[in-house]
């Protein structure tokens, strides 16, 4: 009786893995031997098997076939765009620093230009740079979003 009870408890723990086909031969034999003798476990097993059947039929909705066909091209483009963005930024930073340095040096060293003009030019340059970067980033963002319109056919 005691052995039967232990068996019962052990089988209850193994049933889930048994239904999933994840047990080794020995454990499988233990479960099968017990199931034929225990109506309670047999009922539990049938309910589990039913749950497995229901879950086995559940799938996530698949996107249109074109999504998979274009997937690699899409990833590849994003990779390249990332590299392009880094190169563009690096080049732009170098040029901006050099040009800015030259222009500012000329302006600041010119004694004919009043101080207020020098200050105004500095502020305008800074504002222009911020706006340029902001617009560029926004355009890149919009292009990134637009790619999905092509995918949804």
């Amino acid at each position, binding site marked *: 009786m005691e052995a039967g009870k232990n068996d019962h408890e052990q089988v209850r723990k193994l049933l889930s893995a048994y239904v999933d086909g994840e047990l080794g031969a020995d454990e499988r034999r233990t479960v099968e031997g017990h199931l034929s003798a225990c109506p309670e476990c047999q009922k539990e097993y049938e309910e589990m098997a039913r*749950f497995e059947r*229901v879950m086995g039929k*559940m799938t996530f909705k698949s*996107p249109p076939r074109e999504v998979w066909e274009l997937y690699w091209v899409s990833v*590849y483009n994003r990779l390249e765009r990332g590299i392009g963005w880094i190169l563009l930024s690096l080049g732009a930073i170098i040029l901006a620093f050099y040009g800015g340095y030259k222009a500012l040096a000329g302006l600041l060293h010119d004694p004919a230009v009043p101080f207020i003009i020098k200050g105004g030019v500095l502020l305008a340059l800074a504002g222009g740079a911020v706006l340029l970067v902001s617009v560029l980033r926004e355009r890149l963002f919009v292009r990134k979003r637009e790619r999905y319109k092509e995918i949804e056919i």
Partner: protein
Amino acid sequence: MRQSDLRPGELVMGGLRLARARKAPPQSELEALGRVKAGDTEAYHFIVSTYMKRAYFIALGFVHNQEDALDISQEAFIKAFRGLRAFDLKRPFFPWFYEIIKNLSFDHLRRRKTRQTVPPDIPLVLESSEEGWETRQALWKEINGLPLDQREVILLRYFQQLSYQEIAETLGKPLGTIMSTLHYAKARLRKSLAPHFQREGDHGSR
């Protein structure tokens, strides 16, 4: 020129199609990863083709929105590509990649929460050849009500069809932990879905 006219590895610049010199495609995941690490971007095609569906459906399981799942899965491939240089090829790729998808998905969910956008219509994501809309809705609600560790094993088991061993490797947990987590998750789902199964049982068990 439309994107669909392009073959992978081809690049369009100013209307010109530039074909790349073609190397033999990689024969295994390890070879592909090694070649990517050595700077061969084309070899990444092998990895992307192998895991794109899995990546998409993992993200979908977390974010419940098809467009976001597509975006996150592709972003995960970009992130993995950049991280590969420092990646140890002795480690399995998928568990590391799974972690990237999961992190991106949860970042996305946090952003969505702060922006307070309308959550997507959840049952539209699930399909079943047998169960009705009501059961699918109830099931999806229950799955998403599970604690994260249980939800992950359910998603990997039933929507990725992974074995216990594969789930254990993916999540970096012992096999015994996966077995018991799955056992409790299934018991909870079965309990809460019993009324639905009984109601729809007649046509569901054919």
